[in-house]
């Protein structure tokens, strides 16, 4: 009896399969129609921005960079300026993005324009995967010089650093973001602390201790919350003391310098902050558990956090339910009255060397440095890529945090070593391991030296 029941199932499954295969006939046909859809765009970027010809311009962006509406606005204005050219706008995922970009760039039909995380850009620039944009620099809005410190260089220095390799421009700065001090306004008021008086490391530690004492009734309360492995915050403290993660020698080789006296001072700062009463896990980073969740639950007086976390710490049902309970401030330095140099995270945009639409691609990217593009980034809550725009963010209630972030970035910013092996360093981050080791008993000196050895092993690719 059973056999006769099973066989119909097989047939039903076959029917489903054939139905599926016929319904997906259109997507399978797609690559064929894309292949020849390319006209003879010049192989080298045209210096004159006359409307370039193309039929399809493929643009890859990462999730969260643009809202759909802003992306559509950019694409529409491009399409209007380039009649007959359609933008194929695709959002890609972070997980596995390096493999993805590698194969895409090696394929016969690479994307023309692609967003790349600024710490990953160096890999693709060094490999010769991206078009040399040096001759189009002015057209792209970056000014006249590739050297970050030159007055003719118009982009934020850190983003420009991520875009220039061997003196040539291989990418275009997109946007940046950095960390701020997020604090509980209501608790500050209760403890009678004025945020403007927290102008140095010592004052920050004193405030953290006072907040902790005043909120002793709250289980696991941190005056200043810091997880064991927030290595971005650590980098900032190292720079603040004049140290570096790694330095580049005259021969171009990088050498780790966590154990230098200046860097060790920065590491000690981190440990001091942690020991001022943080209840963060010694063996994990700011995302595990997500620090904004703890803040929302009322366990945190202050924390060093990303600008966008301001939106996440306020949520119904927790302790922090009203945006008025939360404030943002610049992160103080060890030196009274100064702020720490901040790590400038963000993205740059590259154009594939094998792209057949380079001229059109340049036109698309150039939109970002135009006033409209810069304002778009401000609207998204990012620090825009041009120094001039970053310094003149309009004074609106929505921009309060962004203005603090931009002010920090203007005062000083840093970046991970622009070394070809840096991705490999981050893949098994010895800096995180170093922090956990110190917090569980190792000396700063020994742990820093051990981390240096591990970084040196891979940093030069």
């Amino acid at each position, binding site marked *: 009896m059973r056999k006769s029941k099973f066989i119909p199932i097989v047939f039903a499954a076959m029917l489903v399969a054939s139905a599926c295969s016929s319904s997906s006939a259109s997507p399978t046909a797609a690559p064929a129609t894309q292949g020849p859809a390319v006209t003879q765009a010049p192989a080298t970027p045209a210096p004159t921005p006359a409307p370039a010809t193309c039929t399809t311009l493929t643009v890859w962006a990462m999730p969260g960079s643009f809202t759909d509406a802003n992306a559509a606005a950019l694409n529409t204005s491009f399409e209007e300026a380039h009649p007959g050219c359609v933008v194929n706008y695709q959002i890609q995922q972070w997980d596995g993005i390096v493999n993805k970009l590698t194969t895409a760039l*090696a394929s016969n039909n690479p994307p023309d324009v692609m967003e790349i995380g600024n710490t990953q850009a160096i890999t693709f620039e060094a*490999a010769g995967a991206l078009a040399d944009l040096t001759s189009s620099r002015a057209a792209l809005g970056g000014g006249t010089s590739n050297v970050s410190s030159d007055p003719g260089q118009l982009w934020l220095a850190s983003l420009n650093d991520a875009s220039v390799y061997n003196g040539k421009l291989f990418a275009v700065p997109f946007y940046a973001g950095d960390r701020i001090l997020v604090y509980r306004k209501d608790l500050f008021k209760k403890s009678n602390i004025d945020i403007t008086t927290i102008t140095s490391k010592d004052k920050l530690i004193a405030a953290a201790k006072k907040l902790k004492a005043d909120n002793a009734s709250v289980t696991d309360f941190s005056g200043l919350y810091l997880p064991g492995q927030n290595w971005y915050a650590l980098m900032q403290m190292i720079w603040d003391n004049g140290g570096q993660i790694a330095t580049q020698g005259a021969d171009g080789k990088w050498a780790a310098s966590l154990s230098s006296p200046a860097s060790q001072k920065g590491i000690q700062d981190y440990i001091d902050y942690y020991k001022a009463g943080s209840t963060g896990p010694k063996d*994990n980073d700011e995302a*595990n*558990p997500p620090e904004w969740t703890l803040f929302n639950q009322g366990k945190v007086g202050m924390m060093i956090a990303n600008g966008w976390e301001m939106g996440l710490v306020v949520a119904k049902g927790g302790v922090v339910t009203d945006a008025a309970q939360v404030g943002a401030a610049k992160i103080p330095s060890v030196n009274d009255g100064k702020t720490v140099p901040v790590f400038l995270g963000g993205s740059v945009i590259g154009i594939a060397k094998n792209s057949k639409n380079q001229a059109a691609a340049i036109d698309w990217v150039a939109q970002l440095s135009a006033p409209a593009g810069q304002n778009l980034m401000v609207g998204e809550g990012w620090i825009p890529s041009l120094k001039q725009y970053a310094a003149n963010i309009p004074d609106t209630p929505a921009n309060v945090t962004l203005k603090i972030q931009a002010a920090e970035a203007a005062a000083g910013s840093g970046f991970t070593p622009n070394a070809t092996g840096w991705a*490999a360093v981050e893949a098994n981050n010895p800096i*995180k391991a170093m922090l956990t080791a110190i917090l569980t008993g190792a000396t700063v000196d020994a742990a820093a030296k051990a981390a240096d050895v591990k970084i040196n092993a891979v940093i030069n690719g």
Partner: protein
Amino acid sequence: MTRTPPKDIAHRGAPGPFVAPSRYRNRARIIHDLLPYLAILPTLVTFIVLLGYPLLLLLETSMQKFGLYEIINHVTTWIGLQNYHDVLFQGPAGLPDFLTVLFRTTVFMLVNVSLTIVLGTLVALLLERLNKWVRLVLTAAMVLAWAMPVVTGAVLFQWLFDSKLGVVNWAISSLGIFGDYLNHSWFETGLTTFGVVTVLIVWQAIPFVALSLYAGLLSIPKELPEAARVDGGSERQIFRHITLPALAPLLMMLTFLSVIWDFKVFTQIYAMAQGGPDQQTITLSVYSYIVGIAEQKYGYAAAASVVMMLLLLVVLIPYIRRMIRSLEEQ
């Protein structure tokens, strides 16, 4: 069944003294002899062409300097066995050396495989003895565990074992037997990190093993153990002399598969700890990922995986031969 006309038998070319040898019969015989090869032809083509060609390319790239630059610019730089030399003898100074990693990977694999197979067998035996409803519940629970995406599983276990907000520490503390576990950091040492990874892997691997073995148990004719029981055999004797021999081929296959899978485990370890703390959970696959893929030295990564595959082959070939023999005897 009797509907089939008897002449069909003759068509099958059954030998008979009164059937004269003919060209027709010879051709039928040839077709009959060829039939098994025709049936395995699609598989052969799949393995030799579809799988063999990428394997050949893997071998080829393992002897090249092959990274992002080469793949994008279609450059070929032969460097002979340099990658193999680097994998075996010149583990980068900052990472543990190859032998340490190999030893660690082997121990990790052995622990995981033993736990999976032993616990899987126990669960299968248990399934056989449960009442219908409990069995359905347990089977459904296992299928759910099995079906959970690995990445989701890794995130969940990280949460469950979180030092402050994790349910595990909360439950241990609430039990009160082991004292206060509320701030216990599971990811602080290599051993406990491996412990959590092992729980995750075994949790997801048992369902497959247990369900396969349960299917195997069902195919043992019920009469055998019952007869043994009537003859006064103990449960242990029945297991040793009836159940175990009957399951042996299946057990060998499941062990073989588990060894292969657990030796190559990557996602669980990397998603949970990135090889940390302090590189203590770097296994072979994490090692080749860090040096090969993150740094995009695909040639190096290829050499590392060829070495891994050869190691597995050398260790497993005798086992595979035994397994095949035991299958033949089945």
